[in-house]
């Protein structure tokens, strides 16, 4: 205590950033496991969607080569996981923490706003990555190995997509008064983004095709195709080195959307309930 007499010169440390973040993320894992709806969204929904699309789409029945089919299934899995595990569940988590006044409490301590948003995102991203790995193993057994043309691009697809949708989740949380209303407030993003994600055929070329390539999740499926089978948007099979060149545009699109998402989150995210 003696040393603190000259108040200004004493270090008053807080926990290191990583430890802080892990402590918060650990409690987020507990909350995820204890929230049945969120858990179903995180674990069952992506798998269910993939199975549904596979059956409806008659996967593998049209003579498409096995690796391309497997890569398509995996891209679907990632897009659905990003939509529900990351975007929907995170929006719900942000709204719940705000309305429970947990965010207000965190901000009285050493937690920064960025950390408060990262903590729930951490388990969501881990669940997404685990699903991607398990999904890879599953399609390899059931269909055919989808290939590993450039694994780095697969990771960029997953993390970049998570960054965009995590930021959009924070912005969307600002428009949601209650956890229940998240079902409505997340709809516009889902409806606007999902059709152009590349899971369904959209008109190639022309204005719509160009616009589609600039939507937030289209780069994810493009990077998945490049990273797994090494196939670019024109159907050409590229070498490892060539995949980097082809990845520049989708990565740029992801980067721009991440910046826009962060700006939107800064503009609209709220930290305390409305009175």
């Amino acid at each position, binding site marked *: 205590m003696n040393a603190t007499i000259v*108040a200004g010169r004493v270090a008053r440390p807080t*926990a290191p950033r990583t430890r*802080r973040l892990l402590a918060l993320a650990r409690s987020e894992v507990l909350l995820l496991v204890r929230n049945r709806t969120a858990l179903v969204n995180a674990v069952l929904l992506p798998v269910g969607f993939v199975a549904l699309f596979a059956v409806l789409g008659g996967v593998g029945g049209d003579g498409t080569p096995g690796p391309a089919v497997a890569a398509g299934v995996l891209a679907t899995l990632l897009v659905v996981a990003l939509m529900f595990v990351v975007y929907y569940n995170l929006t719900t988590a942000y709204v719940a923490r705000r309305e429970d006044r*947990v965010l*207000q409490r965190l901000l009285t301590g*050493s937690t920064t706003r960025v950390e408060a948003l990262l903590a729930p995102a951490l388990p969501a991203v881990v669940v997404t990555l685990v699903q991607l790995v398990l999904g890879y193993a599953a399609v390899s057994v059931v269909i055919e190995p989808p290939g590993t043309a450039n694994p780095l691009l697969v990771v960029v697809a997953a993390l970049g997509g998570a960054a965009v949708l995590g930021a959009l989740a924070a912005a969307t949380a600002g428009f949601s008064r209650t956890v229940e209303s998240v079902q409505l407030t997340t709809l516009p993003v889902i409806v606007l983004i999902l059709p152009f994600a590349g899971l369904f055929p959209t008109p190639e070329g022309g204005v719509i095709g160009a616009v589609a390539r600039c939507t937030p999740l289209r780069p994810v499926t493009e990077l998945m195709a490049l990273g797994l089978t090494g196939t670019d948007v024109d159907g050409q099979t590229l070498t490892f080195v060539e995949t980097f060149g082809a990845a520049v545009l989708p990565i740029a699109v992801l980067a721009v959307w991440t910046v826009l998402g962060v700006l939107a989150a800064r503009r609209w995210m709220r930290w305390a309930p409305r009175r």
Partner: protein
Amino acid sequence: MTYEPIVSVRGARRRYGRFEAVRGVDLDVRRGELLALLGTNGAGKTSLVELVEGLAPADAGQVRVLGHDPYRERARVVGGLGVMLQEAGFSPDLTTAETMRMWAGTLARPRPVEDVLDDLNLTARADVRVGSLSGGERRRLDLALAILGSPELLVMDEPTTGLDPESRRAVWRLVRGLLEDGVTVLLTTHYLQEAEELADRIAIMRAGRVVRQGTVAETVAAEPARIEFVPHDGAGARLLLTAADLPSLPGLVGAAVDRGRVRLQSTTLQQDLEAVLNWARERGMRLEELEARSASLEQAFLSLAEDADVDEEVAA
């Protein structure tokens, strides 16, 4: 060695749109003392305390906490600060102990969670989900989190609101223990008894300003003492006096007669009481329901709060 108060506020102002909640406040909290901030609802206590907690910037003036600007240099201050908001929340699906461990993970040198739970009498509730705790238990958990990091300065906004009398006394005991350990405390309350029990000094806020600051004794000393009685004649019949019938007293600052009951305000209670008693004896009067008392904190507080209403009307 430079002396610097733990909290130093100079000319602080805070605005919400066109409403100014804090209107030029000067306030010091010295190391090791407890300063209680009193005021009616809407006086600006929470708005001022949030400036000290560094949760918002002052629109004007200067706020220094532990030698730094608590908003702009938050990282330098927050490690020594324990904050108990009026209404911060918990995730209802975490248990008491899980909530404590989470908070401990954000602190550099947290006390053992078990010790703090024990201090707050929450050990038996450690594995209960926070959603199932009573209001009083949650308030104690609030306090447990605020002291988990052994703060140098503890800032509490209405810490005992909603607690039953027994829990309130338990919190007072705990706060006294913290003061003995050298912790500095700034708390807001609207329980005057709480301020009398705990505070080394009090500051009374009204309409965004600190209107009185000092020890409880100093604060009360500015208020007149009261003498009251109902005069009767020697036969026992009530006398209806007027103000003109009353004795002239050296310390008299106010006199009123209400249906026979005489109310006097005095700055020299002993002399004036003696003069009143002599005056009554000379006239053969009996003073029924005689009461003489020094000013209480409550009286001081109420007279300041009443003035506030006048101020507000003038301002409007």
